[in-house]
Structure formats: structure tokens, C-alpha cells
């Protein structure tokens, strides 16, 4: 409990905010991208934007596993779940993500598909053990943090000789995506935004360490600060980024020294490497094809790979053309720039993935930040009057 209070100390936060205001050069602006939806959520939930000077702006990045899953993967999962022999196990958030033509796993479930909501990979494994006559498929998604549990579930399934358990692997990799935001010609074509530095997700780095960002920070000359998810962590990371920019540095710094090391958890990495290999390319919603941006099962585990085992196809599916999720995930537009925001698209009636997960930029803004638009409108109104 003390643990939480320490990282939610409002006075300390205001003190750090004062330091940021004092250090931020009024002659320039600072644009930092928090890659991970966990940070987006913390920024919105604690109203951190209100503590920053106007020339320090946070750009919400693509780092929410639910948000970046392309629509075709949802369609593929729905098609699989509709097969009578299949039990598809999935996290609750995924159930509501819109597929093509207004479909979703939630609707497929209501239509009779055997889709079960689970809280962990191990729940899925338990179902497979209890119902040997069913083909139990775990819909695996997430960044580096969630990959080791999937690897361990596979290991356990193999050890138990469970022949009815397989994985629909959608694990994606953080550094590749960050790199893609800055480098990919495709993404550039789609429009880019000036980014002066990144807040990196601490939970990812507890697994991979800070080292994977070194190349990237040097190559693109962008500072990276790996930070925890408590509001104090985030604001401290912003201060560290402002300092780096002012000093002209572009280093990888670690704000989260309480759990992150340079090399990360090598044991977990080894488990992951045993079972998974890089995909040459994988589509991310909003970023397009990201080279080496995702994982798949190694060929020797083909029997546990749902994609191979059930000859799944990922249809080429297009997002709702009015949905601006793609641009929002790249940071080039804000949720309120989308025509659908708050009208047809709300967390109760999500049109795009950014409105589904509580870590999505649209949902975070709708849930916590909407009143700011109102304040802005009033300001503009006053200015006009």
C-alpha cells in the first residue's frame, strides 16, 4: 500500500511539474510520444496534461495490443470460432473489438460460437485439460510482457501431452514498432509528426531490458526513457526527456530502476526464444506492415500453432473508412479529430479499436478527458466574443 502512495504523491508531482516548467525552453516545443497505452491511461486518468506547460505535449502512441491488432486477425478468429469443434479462449477486451461489417467476437458468441473469456493463458490450458474432446485455441496477444506466459503455457501443454490445445499467436514487439514509426517510408507517406523523444514501457523492459532501445536511440537520435505506469513515474520520465533534449543528448535512460535492468529477464527471454521466432512482417493496425514486428511459433511446434493446424487465413480487411484509428495510433491526429468521436463512436458503441481498450487513445480521452474540449470551446467562444 505504501508502494502505491509513494508513486501517487501529488505534492511530489507538482514539484516535478514545476521543474519541468522551469526547464522547458519557452522558445521551443517538446513533443514526446508515450508508446504504451498504459502510460496513455495514466496520463488521462490522473490528468497529468494539466500539470505540463503548454509547450510540452504528449503524443499517444500505438502501444495497446488490442488497438494494433488488424481487423483481418479478428475476422480470422471469428471464422475459426464459428467452427463447431473449436473453443476459442480470449481476453475480455478482445471480445468487443469490431471486425469487418460490424462483427465482433461478442456477437459471434451470441450467435453460438464457443468463445470463453479467460483471465490468463493458464485458464485456457485448464479448459483444454478438462474438455479433451474440444479443440481449445488460445487467442494470444500482447507485447513482450505477455509472451513469456504464452511460452510457459505451451511448455506445460507439451509436458502434459495435451493434443487439443493450440495458440493463435498475435504477439508483437515494441522496439520494432517504435522504429517503424520513425523510419518506415509507408508511415511517412501516411503523415508523420515531430517527435523529440519516447517514454518506453517499463513492463516490456522488465522482460527485454533497456538494451534493445540503444541502437534505435543512437540511430535516430531520439532519447528514450523507460518508465513505470504510476503517474509519478510518467511525469518523472517527462522531466528526464526535457533534460535530454535541452542537453542535446539522445540516450536510453531508465526511470524504473526498481525493476528494470539493461539486460532484462534473460530466463524469460530464453523461454520465449525456445518457442517463438520473428515474423518477417506483420500488419499492425495504423502502422501497416512492420518488419520483424511480431512473433510466430517455431516450425517444430506447428501442431500447437492454430494458424497452421486449422489452415486459418487472415482476410485482407479494411477499417471503417471514417475511423481515424490509424492516424491516431501514429500520433498524427487526436481522437477529437475523428468525425465519429463521441457521436457514433463511444466506448459503448466502438467503431474502432482505439475506443475499445481502456488503454486506447480514443477511450482514454472519452473516459477521462472529454471536458477539456468543452473548456477549449468556451475559451474559443470567449476569444471570438
Amino acid at each position, binding site marked *: *500500500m505504501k508502494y502505491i502512495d509513494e508513486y501517487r504523491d*501529488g505534492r511530489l508531482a507538482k514539484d516535478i511539474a514545476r521543474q519541468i516548467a522551469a526547464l522547458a525552453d519557452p522558445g521551443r516545443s517538446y513533443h514526446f510520444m508515450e508508446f504504451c497505452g498504459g502510460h496513455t491511461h495514466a496520463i488521462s*486518468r490522473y490528468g497529468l496534461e494539466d500539470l505540463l506547460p503548454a509547450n510540452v505535449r504528449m503524443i499517444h502512441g500505438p502501444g495497446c495490443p488490442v488497438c494494433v491488432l488488424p481487423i483481418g486477425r479478428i475476422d480470422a478468429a471469428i471464422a475459426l470460432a464459428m467452427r463447431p469443434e473449436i473453443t476459442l479462449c480470449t481476453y475480455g477486451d478482445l471480445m468487443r473489438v469490431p471486425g469487418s461489417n460490424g462483427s465482433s467476437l461478442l456477437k459471434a458468441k451470441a450467435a453460438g460460437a464457443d468463445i470463453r473469456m479467460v483471465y490468463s493463458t493458464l485458464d485456457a490450458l485448464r479448459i483444454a485439460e478438462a474438455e479433451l474432446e474440444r479443440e481449445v485455441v488460445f487467442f494470444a496477444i500482447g507485447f513482450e510482457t505477455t509472451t513469456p506466459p504464452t511460452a510457459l503455457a505451451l511448455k506445460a501443454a507439451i509436458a502434459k501431452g495435451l493434443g487439443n490445445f493450440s495458440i493463435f499467436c498475435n504477439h508483437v514487439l515494441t522496439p520494432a514498432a517504435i522504429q517503424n514509426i520513425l523510419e518506415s517510408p509507408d508511415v511517412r507517406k501516411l503523415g508523420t509528426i515531430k517527435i523529440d523523444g519516447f517514454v518506453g514501457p517499463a513492463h516490456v523492459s522488465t522482460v527485454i531490458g533497456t538494451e534493445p532501445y540503444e541502437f534505435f536511440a543512437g540511430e535516430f537520435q531520439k532519447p528514450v526513457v523507460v518508465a513505470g505506469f504510476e503517474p509519478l513515474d510518467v511525469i518523472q520520465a517527462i522531466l528526464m526527456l526535457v533534460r535530454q533534449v535541452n542537453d542535446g543528448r539522445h540516450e536510453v535512460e531508465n526511470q524504473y530502476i526498481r525493476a528494470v535492468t539493461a539486460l532484462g529477464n534473460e530466463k524469460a527471454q530464453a523461454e520465449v526464444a525456445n518457442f517463438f521466432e520473428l515474423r518477417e512482417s506483420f500488419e499492425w493496425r495504423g502502422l501497416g506492415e512492420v518488419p520483424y514486428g511480431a512473433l510466430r511459433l517455431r516450425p517444430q511446434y506447428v501442431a500447437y500453432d492454430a494458424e497452421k493446424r486449422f489452415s486459418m487465413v487472415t482476410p485482407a480487411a479494411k477499417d471503417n473508412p471514417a475511423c481515424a484509428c490509424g492516424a491516431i495510433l501514429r500520433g498524427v491526429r487526436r481522437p477529437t479529430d475523428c468525425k465519429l468521436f463521441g457521436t457514433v463512436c463511444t466506448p459503448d458503441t466502438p467503431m474502432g479499436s482505439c475506443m475499445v481498450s481502456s488503454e486506447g487513445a480514443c477511450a482514454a480521452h472519452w473516459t477521462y478527458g472529454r471536458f477539456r474540449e468543452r473548456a477549449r470551446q468556451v475559451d474559443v467562444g470567449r476569444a471570438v466574443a
Partner: protein
Amino acid sequence: MNMMIKAYRRKLDVANGRVDLSHGAGGRAMGQLIEGIFHKAFDNDWLRAGNDQSAFSVPGGRMVMTTDAYVVSPLFFPGGNIGTLAVHGTINDIAMAGAVPLYLSASFIIEEGFPFADLERIAQSMGAASREAGVPIITGDTKVVERCKADGVFISTAGVGMVPDGLDLRSDAARPGDAVIISGSIGDHGVAVMSKHENLEFDTDIASDSAALHGLVADMIAAGGAHIRLMRDPTRGGIAATLNEIASQSRVGFRIDEDKIPLKPEVAAACEFLGLDPLNVANEGKLVAVVAPEGANAVLATMRAHPLGSEAALVGHVVADDNCFVQMTTSFGGGRIVDWLSGEQLPRIC
């Protein structure tokens, strides 16, 4: 409750027996179940009369009636069970109108195979809760459904009560400037239930706050009746849902202060661990009162003098706002909206 008092009565084997379909079929077995478990637990004159309904007298004035269905899982949790919830919840719904609760009804939908022992435990604690509250359960019904058609047991309770003369609490009565008072720490019930959820089990000492609030309400009305605009018990959806409901019904906004909201550190920690917002987590023994500014201090002091309101706190105010936003100053000094929950509150993925 349809009573069957006939010959050939065998005692229910409460320790080892289970509900089967015959216990809902209207025959001797059903009579035995009702007698052996429910009448024993709820015992009072009305039930002993053995009718399908109960006649009762009420004082003159305005009456309130409410009904609610309880489907909680797990059925037993620290601080209570589905039965105590069904009693407290319905009493509280009556009390939120400022009314004095008088009588309850209870109907049970029981799944075939449900152990008598568990049913008795539930019934006994309901009986105890209703006696402690002074609100008897005077009529009821029992149905048994096939295995897998229910989740152990579902309970519906209804209740009636009388509103004191001159009191008229309405959901559209909140006015800018009114004070918002919460009777105690939030989220205890939701966290206690989640801690026993089969997929989430975690260690915590938190017990449900399930309690009947009509005594607290009676004191509040005695102290500041004319100043109390409205009351609500923030059950499912937590205080976030309650405040949003009041805001849209009264066409006002709220401004609350995160630092002032009573929250146990264990509940905060559990919510953190599960990725939940305590403002969305259910309570079963708390109330939110909107009170005209001139009565706020008196009401607050009275609440604090009652055991169920000892941690009561003034957490914010009603403001004029066409958007009906519930805004909160965070412990960080920033601002945010407190919104309804969309869909189910789910523990986070990573």
C-alpha cells in the same frame, strides 16, 4: 410460500442432501424444503399463517415499493452471501427514498443439485439479517430448475416501506452548490467478491460492506431532512455510475475531489493490481447523499455519529453543467472525468 403440512414427513437431510427437481414440483418435497429451510430461518407470524400471500397493515401516507434480483457469483464471500445481499439491498433501495422499510418478500430460483446445507446457510443468514434490521420476510416463492439452467441459486426480494410525512426525495433535485457526501470507504464489496472469484483469487482481508442503511438514513432525516435533496446507494457501477445517474437526471454536473474520497489502502492496492478504478467498484452498505449547503454540516456530523457512517466525508459539490459531466480533481492536481463504465469492468491484460 405454498405450505404442505401432510403426513409422511421425513426430515430433510440438510447436511448431505441436495435440491432435486421434486423440490420445485409443488408436492410434498417442496413443502418440506420450504418448511425445513425457509420458514425455519425467517420464522414469523405471517409465514406461520401459511398463505400464498400475507396481509399486513400500514400507517397512512406515501408508500414505496421496490424489487431486485440477486445473481452474485461466488455465492459466499467475506462479509456476507447472496442472501444477506438480497435483504440489505432491498432494504437500502427503500431507505434511499427516506422511507422506513416494513416488509420483504423473497423468491428463490434454485438449481437442481444445490446442497441443502448451502441453502440453509443462505436462508439462516437472511433470517438473521432481516431480524437485525427489523424488517420481516413475510412471503415468498421457490422454484427449482434443471442443472445448468441457473448458477446455484438466484434470489429476488421485494420490499415495501413508508415515507415520513413531508419528505420527498427525487432524483432530479440536485442543485448547483449542493454538497455531496459519501457515508464511508468505497469499493469494499466489489473487491471482497472479486477476491473469491475462481480465476482471480488473491489475498486480502477486505470484507464486503453489505449492511442495511435505514437506521443511518433515519438519523440523517431527523438531523437535516429538509436539506437532503436525494440519496442513492452506489451498488453496481460504483459511485461513478451513481453520480453520473444523478447528474443526468438533475441536469447538473459534479466536481469531486479524489483526495477526499474514503478508500481503504487494501482496496486501492487490489484495484491497482487488477487494473480497476475503485470509483466503478460495487458497494453494498454505502450511500451518497446530495444535501443543500446549509444542511451539509449537520447531516455530515449525524452520519459520523452512526456506526455505518463513521467515515462519512464531504467529497465535492454539484455544479451547473449542460454536459452533466462528473469531474474530479485527481490526487495529482490534474482534472479528469469520472465516467460510467462501458461494458463489464475487466482486469487488464498486461
